[in-house]
C-alpha cells in the first residue's frame, strides 16, 4: 500500500491510524478483486466464444446448407404464384399447395416441434453425460468430476440449444396472445434448430471421449498454466500477496486434480497406454513450463506457499529480539517460500505412476512415457536448477531401473532394459547441456551494462534477466532498498553498479555450486549405477549407462573452458573486492572430469569380458564394440599422457576385446562376395592393436617409461608363446601384410592416421641439434635412437615409419617363430628400424 511514508510513520503510534489503514486496505482490495473478477469473467467469455466458434466451425457448413435450402424455398415461394399461374396449374393440387399462405397453426406447430426437439436434445445430452459420469466418474474425486461440468464445448452447446428452445417457447407464447406470427422469426428458428441438430451429432461423438477422463487433463494443465502465468510478473496484481495466495490456491487445485487423474489412470488398466502416456506428458510439460516461469515470480511470492523455519536467538535482528524481550514471548518462526511444491506434486505423481506401470510389467509403456522427460530436464538446466535436476534424475532412474536392480527377468523384449537405462543416464547430460547453453548465451559484459542501467523501481525489474533465483533475490533487495531510500527521502541512491556486483556475486556462487554438484553427482552416480547393474548381470544396461557417462565426460571436458570463461567474466573488474566470491580451481576441476572419464573407461574395460558372450543384435546398441573401441582410445590417451597405471589396467581388456572382436566379425563377413573386402574388415581391429602396440614401444621410449611397453610386451608374449602361438603369429603376419598391400584406405585407417598425426606433432616439438652441413636441419635431440630415427624430418610434418611397422620390426620379427613369415615390410625398412645407428640412419634418410 503506497502512502506518504513520513506521515504514516509518524502516525504509526496511534490506534486510529491502523484501523483507518486496514479499512482503506480492505476497500482497495475489494476494488482490485472486482477488477480481477471482471477480467476473469471476460477471459471466461472469450474462452466460451472460442468454444462456440469451434462448434460453429464444425456445424457451419451444415447450418449454411440448411439456411440456403430455406432461402431457396423462400425465393421459390415468392415466385411460385407467378410460376404456377404462368404454367396454368393453379387449379391443380400442387398449385393450391404452392400458393397457400402459412397458417398460424402450422407456425405454432413448427415452433412447438423445435422447442420439443431441442428439449429432447438437452435431455439426451445430460443423459449421456450422466451415464458417462455414472460409469466412469463414480470413484474419482469431486474435482475431476467437476471437470465434465466445466467442459466448454458441452457448455456452449447447452447454451445454444437452450436459447433455441426458450426462443421457440417465447414466440409460441407471443402467438398465443395474438402477437405474430413473425415471418422473420422462421429462418432464425430454423437456423437454431439446424445448429442444434448438427452440433448434437458432433457432441454425441465427443461424449464418447468423456469416457476417458485423461482427456480432461488438457483443461487442468491449461488451468494450472494460466494461474501460474498470473503469478508471474505478467499477471494481474502479481505483487499483491492476496492475489498471489489466490493464484496459488487455484493453481494448486488444478495441480492436485492432475495428480488425482494420474493416480486414477495409473491404477486402472483401461486407462493405461496412450491415455496415461499423454497424461504424464502433460504433467511433465506443466512442470517444465512452471520451471521456465520460476524466475519470473517474486522469490517471496505466496504462489510458492509457505513453510516455517525457526530462528536462532543469537542470529535474530534487534527489533524482533526487542519484541520478544518486551513481551517475554518466544521468537516467531520465519515463513519461507516452499519453492518446490510444483515439482514435488506433479513429478512425485509422475514418478509414482511410472513405478506403478513398471511394477505392472509395462516397461515398454514406461519407455513411452519418458519421451517428454527431455523437455523437463532441459528446463532444470535452463533455470539454473541443476541440483533439482540431479535429485529428480536419481528418483526417476531408481524407478525406471527398479526391476533391473531387483534382477527381474525381462522375457518379452530384453532390449527395453538397456533402453530405459539409456533414458535414465541421458537425463543428466540434458541438464548439463541446458545449463551450458544458458551460461554460454550470457554476454556477461552486456548483462553488466543492463544491470547498471536498469531502473530498479520499474515493475518487475529483477525478473528480466533470466538469472538464478539467488541473483533475483539480490536484485529484489536492491529494488526494496531503493524503495526504502525513496520513502525515507534519503540523499543516497543505491547505484546500478551495486546491483551488478550483487547479481554477479550471487550468479557466481550459484554457478560454482551447480557445477560442483553436477560433477559430484556424475562422479558418484554413473559408476555406482553401472556397478549395480553389472552386479545383477544387466551388462547391456550397464553398457548404456557407461556409454552415456563417457559422452557426458566428453561434453564436460569441452564445456569447461566456457564455464571457466564465464566465471572469469563474472569476477572481472569488481568494485567491491572484499565481497566474498567463489574461488575456482580449474586445473583440479579438469582433473576431476578426466578422472570421471577414466572411471568410466575402467568400467568399460572391465565390461569387455562380461559382454563377450552376448551375440551382436540389431535390437541393441553394440555395447561390446563400443567398450572395445573406447578402451582402445583410452589406451592411446594413456600412452600419450604417460599414464602407465591406466594403460596397465585397461590394455589387457582391450587386447582381449580385439581378439574377441575378430572372432565375432569372422562369421559375419564369411559370406561376403569379395574375400578381400571381408578380410579387410575382419582384421581391422587387429591392425588397431598392432599399431597401438607400436605406440607402446615408441612412447615408452619417448617418456622414458618402460612400464608402458612392458605391460604390452607381456601380453603379446603370453599370447604368442602359448600353444597355437605359431598360427596366431602367422595370422597376424598375413593381416599386416594384407594391409600393406592394400591399395585403398581401410575402414579404420583414418582413425589410426589421427593417432599418427598426434605422434608426429609430439615428435615435432623435440628440439634439433647442430646441422652437420649447410642443408642439414639437424638431428632431433632425444636420448632414444628410435625416437630420433622415426621423428619427422626433411621439413615434412609426417613420419616415414608407422607405429605398426615399429612393432612388427622391433618385436614380432625378432621372435623365433617369426622366421620365414612375411609381414609386408620392405627389408630396408626392417633394417633401419632394427639397426638404430644414428649416423647411418640420418644419411640414409
Amino acid at each position, binding site marked *: 500500500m503506497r502512502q506518504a511514508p513520513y506521515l504514516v510513520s509518524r502516525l504509526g503510534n496511534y490506534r486510529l491510524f491502523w484501523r483507518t489503514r486496514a*479499512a482503506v*486496505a480492505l476497500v482497495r482490495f475489494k476494488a482490485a478483486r472486482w477488477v480481477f473478477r471482471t477480467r476473469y469473467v471476460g477471459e471466461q467469455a472469450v474462452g466460451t466464444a472460442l468454444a462456440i466458434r469451434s462448434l460453429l466451425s464444425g456445424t457451419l457448413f451444415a447450418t449454411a446448407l440448411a439456411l440456403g435450402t430455406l432461402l431457396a424455398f423462400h425465393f421459390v415461394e415468392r415466385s411460385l404464384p407467378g410460376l404456377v399461374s404462368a404454367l396454368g396449374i393453379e387449379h391443380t393440387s400442387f398449385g393450391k399447395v404452392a400458393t397457400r399462405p402459412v397458417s398460424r397453426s402450422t407456425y405454432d406447430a413448427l415452433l412447438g416441434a423445435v422447442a420439443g426437439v431441442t428439449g429432447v436434445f438437452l435431455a439426451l445430452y445430460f443423459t449421456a453425460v450422466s451415464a458417462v459420469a455414472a460409469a466412469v466418474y463414480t470413484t474419482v474425486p469431486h474435482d475431476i468430476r467437476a471437470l465434465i461440468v466445466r467442459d466448454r464445448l458441452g457448455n456452449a452447446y447447452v447454451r445454444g440449444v437452450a436459447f433455441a428452445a426458450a426462443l421457440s417457447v417465447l414466440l409460441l407464447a407471443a402467438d398465443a396472445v395474438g402477437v405474430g406470427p413473425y415471418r422473420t422469426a422462421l429462418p432464425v428458428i430454423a437456423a437454431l434448430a439446424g445448429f442444434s441438430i448438427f452440433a448434437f451429432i458432433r457432441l454425441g461423438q465427443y461424449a464418447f471421449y468423456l469416457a476417458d477422463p485423461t482427456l480432461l487433463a488438457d483443461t487442468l494443465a491449461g488451468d494450472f498454466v494460466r494461474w501460474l502465468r498470473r503469478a508471474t510478473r505478467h499477471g494481474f496484481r502479481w505483487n499483491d500477496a492476496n492475489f498471489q495466495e489466490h493464484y496459488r490456491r487455484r493453481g494448486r487445485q488444478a495441480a492436485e486434480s492432475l495428480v488425482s487423474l494420474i493416480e486414477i489412470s495409473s491404477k486402472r488398466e483401461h486407462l493405461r497406454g496412450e491415455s496415461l502416456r499423454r497424461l504424464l506428458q502433460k504433467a511433465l510439460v506443466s512442470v517444465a513450463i512452471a520451471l521456465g516461469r520460476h524466475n519470473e515470480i517474486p522469490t517471496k511470492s505466496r504462489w510458492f506457499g509457505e513453510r516455517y523455519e525457526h530462528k536462532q536467538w543469537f542470529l535474530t535482528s534487534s527489533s524482533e529480539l526487542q519484541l520478544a524481550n518486551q513481551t517475554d514471548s518466544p521468537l516467531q518462526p520465519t515463513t519461507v517460500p516452499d519453492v518446490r511444491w510444483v515439482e514435488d506434486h506433479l513429478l512425485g505423481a509422475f514418478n509414482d505412476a511410472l513405478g506403478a506401470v513398471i511394477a505392472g510389467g509395462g516397461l515398454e509403456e514406461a519407455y513411452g512415457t519418458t519421451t517428454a522427460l527431455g523437455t523437463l530436464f532441459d528446463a532444470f538446466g535452463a533455470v539454473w536448477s541443476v541440483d533439482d535436476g540431479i535429485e529428480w534424475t536419481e528418483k526417476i532412474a531408481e524407478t525406471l531401473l527398479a526391476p533391473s536392480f531387483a534382477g527381474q527377468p525381462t522375457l518379452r523384449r530384453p532390449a527395453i532394459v538397456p533402453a530405459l537405462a539409456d533414458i535414465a543416464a541421458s537425463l543428466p547430460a540434458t541438464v548439463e547441456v541446458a545449463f551450458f547453453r544458458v551460461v554460454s548465451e550470457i554476454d556477461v559484459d552486456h548483462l553488466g551494462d543492463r544491470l547498471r542501467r536498469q531502473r530498479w523501481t520499474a515493475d518487475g525489474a529483477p525478473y528480466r534477466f533470466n538469472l538464478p533465483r539467488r541473483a533475483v533475490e539480490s536484485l529484489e533487495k536492491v529494488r526494496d*532498498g531503493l524503495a526504502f531510500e525513496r*520513502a525515507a527521502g534519503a*540523499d543516497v541512491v543505491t547505484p546500478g553498479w551495486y546491483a551488478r556486483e550483487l547479481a554477479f556475486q550471487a550468479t557466481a556462487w550459484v554457478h560454482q555450486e551447480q557445477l560442483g554438484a553436477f560433477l559430484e553427482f556424475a562422479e558418484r552416480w554413473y559408476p555406482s549405477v553401472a556397478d549395480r547393474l553389472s552386479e545383477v548381470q544387466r551388462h547391456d544396461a550397464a553398457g548404456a549407462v557407461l556409454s552415456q557417462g563417457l559422452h557426458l565426460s566428453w561434453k564436460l571436458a569441452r564445456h569447461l573452458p566456457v564455464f571457466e570463461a564465464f566465471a572469469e567474466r563474472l569476477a572481472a573488474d569488481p568494485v567491491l573486492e572484499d565481497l566474498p566470491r567463489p574461488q575456482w580451481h580449474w586445473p583440479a576441476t579438469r582433473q576431476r572430469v578426466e578422472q570421471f572419464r577414466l572411471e568410466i573407461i575402467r568400467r568399460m574395460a572391465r565390461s569387455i569380458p562380461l559382454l563377450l558372450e552376448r551375440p551382436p543384435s540389431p535390437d541393441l546398441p553394440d555395447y561390446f564394440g563400443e567398450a572395445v573401441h573406447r578402451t582402445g582410445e583410452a589406451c592411446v590417451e594413456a600412452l600419450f599422457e604417460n599414464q602407465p597405471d591406466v594403460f596397465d589396467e585397461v590394455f589387457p581388456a582391450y587386447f582381449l576385446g580385439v581378439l574377441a572382436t575378430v572372432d565375432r566379425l569372422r562369421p559375419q563377413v564369411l559370406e561376403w562376395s569379395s574375400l578381400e573386402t571381408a578380410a579387410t574388415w575382419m582384421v581391422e581391429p587387429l591392425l588397431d592393436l598392432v599399431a597401438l602396440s607400436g605406440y607402446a614401444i615408441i612412447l615408452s621410449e619417448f617418456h622414458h617409461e618402460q612400464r608402458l611397453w612392458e605391460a604390452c610386451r607381456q601380453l603379446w608374449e603370453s599370447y604368442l608363446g602359448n600353444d597355437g602361438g605359431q598360427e596366431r603369429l602367422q595370422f597376424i603376419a598375413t593381416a599386416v601384410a594384407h594391409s600393406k598391400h592394400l591399395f585403398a584406405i581401410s575402414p579404420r585407417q583414418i582413425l589410426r592416421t589421427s593417432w599418427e598425426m598426434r605422434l608426429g606433432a609430439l615428435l615435432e616439438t623435440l628440439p634439433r641439434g647442430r646441422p652437420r652441413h649447410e642443408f642439414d636441419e639437424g638431428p632431433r635431440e632425444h636420448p632414444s635412437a628410435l625416437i630420433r630415427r622415426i621423428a619427422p624430418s626433411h621439413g615434412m610434418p609426417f613420419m616415414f615409419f608407422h607405429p605398426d611397422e615399429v612393432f612388427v620390426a622391433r618385436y614380432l620379427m625378432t621372435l623365433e617363430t617369426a622366421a620365414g613369415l612375411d609381414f609386408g615390410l620392405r627389408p630396408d625398412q626392417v633394417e633401419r628400424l632394427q639397426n638404430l645407428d644414428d649416423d647411418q640412419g640420418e644419411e640414409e634418410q
Partner: protein
Amino acid sequence: MSRRRRDPTQRLSRAYFPPPPDREPGLPAEGSGFFFARDLPLGLMPFRGSNENSAFSISLDPPDTAREVWLAELLEVRDRYSYGVEDAVTSFVEETIGFIAYFGERYFEIASVEPEADELPPVRLLPLPWGPVVQLVRSYYQLIPRHARSEDGKRMVRLPASRIWHLRLPRELGSPRRHRRMLRRLSRVSRPVPDFAFPTGGLAPEVRGYDFTTYHRLSDIAVERLTNRWGTIPSLNQVEGTTEYFFVARRLRFLRSQALIRGHILRELNALLERLGVPERIVMTGLPTPQAIDETLGRLERGEIGFKEALDTTRV
C-alpha cells in the same frame, strides 16, 4: 606539564544538578533518540593512546609552550587535568559534543583564575548546567529552576555577554531547538511496539489492521527521514530492507556530520582565542574533512572505490 588545579576567582553563573526525572521531565532519551545522542561523540576524535592514526596531531600555531599550559587550563571543563594541547583539545571536544549531542548547544562562562608569577593570565571555561539561558541586549540571563534556587531565592543570574561563550551545532546540522525536537521525535517513532498494540501481552496484536512488520518498517523510514541530514545512526547498523551501499554511504554521511562538528568546534575555539586576545591558533591535522568525505562519497557512488576503501579513507 603537571599542574595544580586552581579554582576560578569568581563565578557568576549558578551550577546545579538537573532535577530528578519525576519532578521535571527532561529530554526523552529512548530508542533511536538515545542511540543518536550516545553515538554522536563516539569516534569523533581519535581514541587516545591508539597509534592507528599516526597522521593525527593538534598543535598551536605558532608553537608556544607557555600558551599550551594556558590552553590546557582554559579547556579543563571538568575536574580533570589534561596534558598538552592535543590531550586538552581532544578531551574538550569529546566532553562538549557529548553534551551538545543531547541539547544542541552549550554555554560556558569565561572565568578568570588568579595568576602565579611569570605566568600568562589564566582563564577557565565553566560550563553552565542545562537550563534556560536568555540573551537580552548585551547580557545573558541564567534562569534558575525551582529545585536549584539557593536560600536567597534568586530566580535568575545576569551574565555579561563578555563572560559567555555560546557553543552550538553548526548551522548546516540545524538549530539547537530543531535538534532537540529531532531527538524527541526519534524517541517517539522508534518505540519497538506502540502501547496500544499488545495491551494484554498477547502474542497477536489486539488492534485490527496493526501489523508489526509494517510498523517496524515505517519506524525505520521515519528514523531515516529524521536523521537525513546527519546520516544513519551507527548503532542501528544496516537497517532492514536497505542495501549495504545505503548503509555504507549513510555511515559516511554520519562521519561527515562528525567531521563538520569537529571542524566547527575548532573554528569556534579559535574564535574564542581571538576574542581573548590570544595570537596563537589551534591546528588539527590528520582527520578527514567534510570535503574529503564528500569526495569519497562521490567516488563510491561512481563505483571507483569499494566499501572497504571508502571506510578506510574516512577512518578517524
